[in-house]
């Protein structure tokens, strides 16, 4: 009897245990059936991050558990600060509101000052999609794209002009790159990328950058016709290194060029700042985030849906330029990428403050 009794007892315990774990799993299962999920885009309709977000919507509706309705809400203003502040203030950790993050969000995190009332580092990132940066110059500068040292010498021998929106923006990553390379450069502010391209064709500016996506869609035709010459990419952060951009493996990185020109790899505070901006402009270019305190199971549901979206052949075709062949990061890895971009050491942070103050008379 005894063995049987203890066996029964054991079976009962086991059953109870498995039942409880089952009900535990049920409590953790996320279901958005009948819900409306708000996707905050802190930008005007039609910008890069807005289009990125819009492309995901039909697939998020398909792959999130319970097939919720996902609506996008554009809250533009203040270089994304307004919308992000509102997200921080209103989003609850229930998975019913998420935000699309971009380099502007991260720049605002670094340089937003008092106006920034949000903290990206506390958000729970669902994913980040990297996006390479290509730098190209007009053929009028004499560059050929064939010999990187000769091209660098050519550019160092003249004044080169670059166009950017404003000093406190993601374009700083290229300005830092020009600094590292010791170019005699000047930036004309108040210009959008398309305007810069047009001004280059007119011979008023010499150098420009584009993200991989707009490089392919808008600069390519002038590269074919020989007006623009692609030179370098900012590369792709990998661990503590920066390696060649997987989409443009033929173009050297700034790091390679620096090493070849100076005989040693770049280092120092200035380089750390450059690296942070490569992280925020390239590695963490776009992505989705949930508010602080969102439980793991909800984030997992989102990570899962985004992964499925990225594997969907229709989506791949649609987003061939936006997502490209770049390695996508999810969950904790995405959080880490954000931290690398904006979690500056006090030393680098001070250096950045001084740089903005000295060079652009901007107090942060």
């Amino acid at each position, binding site marked *: 009897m005894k063995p049987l009794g203890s066996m029964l007892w054991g079976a009962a315990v086991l059953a109870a245990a498995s039942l409880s774990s089952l009900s535990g799993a049920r409590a953790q299962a996320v279901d958005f059936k009948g819900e409306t999920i708000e996707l905050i885009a802190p930008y005007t309709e039609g910008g890069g991050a807005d289009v990125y977000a819009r492309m995901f919507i039909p697939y998020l509706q398909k792959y999130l558990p319970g097939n919720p309705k996902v609506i996008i*809400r554009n809250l533009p*203003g203040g270089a994304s*600060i307004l919308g992000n502040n509102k997200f921080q203030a209103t989003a609850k950790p229930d998975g019913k509101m998420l935000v699309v993050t971009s380099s502007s969000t991260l720049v605002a995190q670094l340089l937003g000052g008092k106006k920034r009332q949000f903290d990206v580092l506390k958000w729970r990132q669902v994913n980040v999609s990297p996006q390479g940066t290509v730098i190209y110059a007009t053929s009028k500068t004499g560059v050929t794209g064939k010999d990187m040292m000769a091209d660098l010498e050519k550019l160092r021998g003249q004044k080169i002009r670059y166009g950017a929106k404003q000093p406190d923006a993601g374009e700083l990553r290229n300005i830092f790159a020009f600094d590292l390379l010791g170019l005699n450069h000047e930036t004309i*502010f108040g210009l959008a990328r398309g305007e810069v391209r*047009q001004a280059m064709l007119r011979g*008023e500016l010499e150098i420009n950058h584009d993200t991989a996506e*707009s490089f392919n869609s808008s600069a390519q035709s002038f590269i074919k016709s020989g007006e623009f010459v692609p030179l370098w990419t900012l590369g792709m952060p990998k661990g503590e290194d920066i390696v060649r951009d997987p989409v443009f493996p033929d173009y050297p990185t700034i790091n390679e060029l620096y090493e070849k020109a100076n005989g040693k790899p770049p280092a120092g505070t200035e380089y750390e700042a450059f690296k942070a901006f490569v992280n925020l402009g390239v590695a963490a270019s776009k992505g989705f985030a949930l508010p602080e305190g969102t439980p793991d199971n909800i984030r997992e549901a989102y990570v899962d849906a985004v992964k499925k979206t990225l594997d969907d052949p229709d989506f791949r075709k649609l987003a061939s330029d936006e997502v490209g062949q770049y390695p996508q990061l999810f969950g904790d890895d995405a959080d880490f990428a954000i931290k690398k971009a904006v979690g500056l050491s006090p030393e680098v942070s001070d250096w950045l403050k001084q740089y903005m103050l000295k060079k652009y008379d901007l107090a942060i």
Partner: protein
Amino acid sequence: MSDVIVETLVRLLSGWHLVYLLIGVYVGLVMGVLPALGGSAGMAVLLPFVFGLDAELALPMMIGMMAVTPTADTFPSVLMGIPGSNSSQSTVLDGFPLSKRGEAARALSAAFSASLVGGVIGAGFLTVAIFFALPFLLMIGFGEQLMLILLALTMVGTLTGASPLKGLATCGLGLLVGTIGTAPTTGSQRMTFDMSYMMDGVPLIIVGLSLFALPEIVDLVRRQTKISQTGTSLGSGWIQGVKDTIINWGVVLRCSLLGVIIGALPGIGGSVINWVSYSHVVQTAKDKSQFGKGDIRGVIGPESANNAQDGGALIPTLLFGIPGSGSMALLLAGFILVGIEPGVEMITTNLDLTYTIIWSLALGSVFGAGTCVFLAKPIARLTLVPATIIAPFMFSLIFLSAFQATRDWGDLAILLILGILGIYMKRFGWPRPAFMIGFVLSGQLENGLYRVTQVYGFSFLERPVVLALLVMLALAIYAAFRFKPKEEPITATPAHSAENRLPQLMFVFLLIAFAGYALVQSLSWNFATALMPRSVALATLLLLVPLAAAMVRTKTAAHYFYDSEREEFSGDVEYRTNEHYIALLVATLIGAWLAGFVVAMTAFLYLFLRRKAKLQHWQCAVAAACLAVSLMALSSLLGLRFPASLASTFVDLPWYLT
């Protein structure tokens, strides 16, 4: 090439292509009719359907939508004095007075037929110009852009109203308000009072709504029983409007070309086009006496220009991937989604797509304008509804529209502040169009000056196109002086009298205080940040101070005195002051802040209809319910949320009531 043209047309007119084109056209019409929901909102509505669609179906839909929004937005501009979008702000100037004269149907059908012709001219221009435009566009560098902006600025000469001094000072104030926000060249904040909302400056759509729509509607409920003063009939009707367009074919042609060219040129921007074409019409007209009071040419000009503009703006969009406007930016996003990559290929290997775009533009304009002409007469009946009934709806529409700018409380606050400014500018005869010209050109002017000094220095004067434009500039300034509108005799209206001038003196001193404040503020900014606001503030003060001095000293009637309160008020309408209505609007806004937008608007409508229109309780209730339902439907269809109220921070309210 010609077979491609015919082929694409035949394809477009057959089967699903036409269906998609018409879907685009009707979405565009609905979006256009609702003020502030223009091309951008329409494109945002269409984008989900563009996913995975074949380019040959997606293009007609997107272009069809874009082609008709500047047509449909004429309805609110003409009938209610509410600018339907940034591109039809100047239509209000003569369109609304025409409605008030009981000629709404005529004004509308003139506008639509002009839009139709403009759209077709734009498409025709695009057909030819896209092959030759590249070298010409590349001739317009930063120096040329600056000259063009200056040329546009001289247009203000025709919009100064009775007192040139007052007009120029107003333009200066517009320029000054345009500098509020982040300085484009340095990233520093100017007059933002440390509020993040102010970083992007004052949204253009709100300036239009507050300077034109709010003052006009307040004036309407104060003075008239109906929008149409003639009362019961719609006057000469829509055939007259079409005739007007035909008679003024020269205006249509010139303004269409103006629209197309400015649309294609870099660095000037689409929102300037309607103002430049309006000034052009005024400048070239022999008899200028009726402008601002209901001259049909003031409607025909801007409406043909703003429809033609798409044809021009598509050139840089297709060739360089440079969006000329907000809706073009979304169109570009749509292009990417259907796999079209802008570039020179658009006129070589992808020529058929370019022609699909051109034909969609032309056919869209025809279908859109045709539908609108058909609707003009029934919709014009709105002008026969008592003003006290229609006004509260118009106020709600304005609030809703303003809130579309950035969907922030700041939108509504700015609307009210500038609305109050607009009401007094109207009362004291400060020309609001001159303010608009200054405002729309402010950012461009500053950017232009900065780029020229950075890139060229004075060497920009060695460029041949710059020199040619310089000559044109000199001619334009000469013309502004030479062909000044004839001064009205002062005795014609009691408004110019020198008696009881304290209110207008107070207003001038307030303006001086504002310009002075800007000047003092600018002293603490660095050179590049301060240069533009400091120069503009100084110039404005140099105009305002002598004006104020003259107003203090002069004891007889003069052009610079103006107070519309001295004009006769109709005995049919209960007399209420401007301040009464300002207080009403402020109270509504505070209500919205406390209890939520929908609740406050509904309550406002109910009380307004009850107290002002003296309707029965049940009638007020039905109207209020209709408004509430349509607000909620609109917000759920377009995914827009109303500003969060104080109540919603305490109670968990459903999203449409926050």
